[in-house]
């Protein structure tokens, strides 16, 4: 049995603990530990990606307890892809934080690796209760990171975020309890066997559990009507944290994808979900687009574009077909990286504009041609214009949808994209063009922040250049997800136990 699958969990956990011991030594040693571990996550996750990319489902039994009794870690194509994405995103976010934001509180370098621990754990676990535990690890770290730096706006947005997520956690536990009460197991593969052959009198309870789980994951993913916490929180947090949080909504999306392909398949007890999800996905796109048009600050605008991207992802997922999932899986890395890059870019622009910060109003300060060029590139990428990967992702989505739903989805996705273009052009013109007076004020560009931003933007270009292999991988992942029996066999062995 290969123990490498534990590395994405153990590395950040150890780094968090070591950094806790180093708190009194100042930021220097802590930075070194965080940077080394986060950088080490990248080769480790790529190693796991190569392993899972062949189609093998790698199983790791914690404590060597056999599958339904102990906790299993399961690595398939989807989890491997998301592990790599997390590592690729975490490194620039951390580098950006070393520009100085990490010194605004003593515990940044404790919470940052622990957040990665929670995210990676959520992607790897094959047990529903363990998923809850990793969600909590992720959330507790995120509460601290969101409040990092303090101040009125952060505390206000943070309080809403914490209370909402505690209610969400309660609902999650109720859903878990319902499933355990019916099935007597919480291993995802074992649950999958139970729910596909459940007696008729249990189906109502299973449907209730499915909708409860959808509510919980929709809250994490910021799906309408549970999206209102996101713009306030992400625009209040420091830029590197907002960039890292770009993956947090994707954890919710991942949980929806995993639950309703494996545990409660949409062909069975998840049927209600299949009916609800397309509608809320399109409404989420619409709400996000309206929010983006109404935004008065650049970070709020970006946060609403993140809401749009969640809606777009769910629109693809809600089809539950290979082309639909492929589109979502192709679009996911692009949208995560570009939103993170935009948050960092917004911090650079706000630095240059002094007291006005990222508010979209005309001032006599031009942030400079370099930032203007970067903003143009990022805007083209995030709005899904050709030739970048966002366009390809949306094209895959539009091609994936079958005739009865097609007009709705086409209309909403395209109008949503148009709204994004309008909002971004308005923002861009008030930031860069309608600037009377002399050129640049403020300090020079902080190099780590600039490097991280450029890296994230280049990565979205790279996603476009290597679109063909990524699409092939996405097709393979979607195919694997829609064959849950492969996972069940890999986790529980060939013979059906019941």
């Amino acid at each position, binding site marked *: 049995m290969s123990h490498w699958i534990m590395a994405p969990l153990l590395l950040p956990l150890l780094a968090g603990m070591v950094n806790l011991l180093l708190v009194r030594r100042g930021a220097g040693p802590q930075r070194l530990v965080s940077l080394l571990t986060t950088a080490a996550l990248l080769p480790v996750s790529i190693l796991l990606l190569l392993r899972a990319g062949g189609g093998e489902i790698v199983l790791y039994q914690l404590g060597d307890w056999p599958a339904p009794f102990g906790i299993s870690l399961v690595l398939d194509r989807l989890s491997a892809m998301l592990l790599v994405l997390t590592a690729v995103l975490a490194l620039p976010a951390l580098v950006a934080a070393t520009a100085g934001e990490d010194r605004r509180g003593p515990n940044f370098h404790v919470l940052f690796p622990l957040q990665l621990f929670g995210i990676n754990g959520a992607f790897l676990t094959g047990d529903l209760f363990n998923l809850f535990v990793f969600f909590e690890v992720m959330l*507790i770290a995120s509460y601290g990171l969101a409040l990092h730096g303090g101040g009125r706006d952060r505390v*206000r947005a943070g309080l809403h975020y*914490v*209370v909402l997520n505690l*209610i969400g956690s*309660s609902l999650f*536990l109720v859903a878990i309890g319902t499933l355990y009460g019916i099935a007597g197991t919480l291993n995802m593969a074992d649950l999958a066997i139970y729910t596909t052959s459940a007696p008729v009198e249990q189906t109502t309870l299973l449907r209730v559990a499915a909708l409860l789980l959808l509510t919980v994951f929709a809250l994490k993913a910021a799906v309408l009507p549970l999206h209102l916490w996101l713009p306030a929180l992400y625009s209040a947090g420091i830029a590197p944290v907002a960039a890292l949080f770009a993956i947090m909504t994707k954890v919710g999306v991942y949980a929806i994808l995993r639950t309703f392909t494996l545990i409660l398949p949409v062909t069975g007890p998840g049927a209600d979900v299949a009916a609800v999800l397309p509608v809320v996905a399109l409404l989420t796109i619409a709400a996000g687009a309206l929010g983006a048009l109404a935004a008065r600050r650049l970070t709020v605008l970006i946060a609403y574009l993140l809401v749009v991207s969640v809606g777009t992802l769910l629109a693809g997922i809600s089809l539950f077909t290979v082309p639909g999932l492929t589109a979502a899986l192709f679009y996911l890395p692009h949208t995560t990286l570009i939103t993170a890059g935009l948050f960092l870019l917004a911090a650079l622009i706000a630095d240059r504009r002094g007291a006005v910060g990222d508010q979209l109003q005309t001032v006599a300060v031009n942030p400079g041609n370099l930032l203007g060029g970067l903003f143009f590139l990022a805007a083209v990428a995030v709005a899904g214009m050709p030739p970048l990967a966002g366009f390809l992702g949306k094209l895959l989505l539009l091609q994936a949808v079958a005739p009865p739903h097609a007009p709705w989805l086409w209309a909403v996705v395209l109008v949503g994209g148009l709204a994004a273009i309008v909002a971004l052009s308005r923002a861009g013109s008030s930031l860069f063009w309608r600037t009377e007076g002399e050129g640049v004020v403020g300090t020079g560009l902080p190099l780590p922040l600039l490097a991280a931003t450029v890296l994230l933007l280049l990565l979205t270009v790279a996603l476009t250049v290597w679109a063909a292999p990524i699409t092939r991988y996405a097709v393979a992942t979607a195919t694997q997800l829609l064959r849950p029996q492969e996972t069940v066999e890999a986790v529980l062995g060939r013979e059906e136990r019941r």
Partner: protein
Amino acid sequence: MEILASLVVAVLFACGAYLVLRARTFPVAIGLALLSYGVNLFLFFTGRLVTGAPPLAGGAAATADPLPQALVLTAIVIGFGMTAFVVALALRARGELGNDHVDGGGEER
């Protein structure tokens, strides 16, 4: 017995939901605590209500399910920690925002 148990959970959830919707942070914190109590009892009851049965598989005819107890233990630890965090955050909000309204009070909203 089952009816009594479900009523207890229902009352805890109802009170918790009511308090969470209040506008001050203190009732919200109490409401979250009540919600987590309700959830813990609910999880505990999913192992079915049995009395005097050993938590062992095999052998005896009636056995108590030990797994929900393990789940509840985890949920209690997390819930307790989070309640403490919410109280601390509410105090911080009181200090930063100048009042204990969940939206930070009336100066601009």
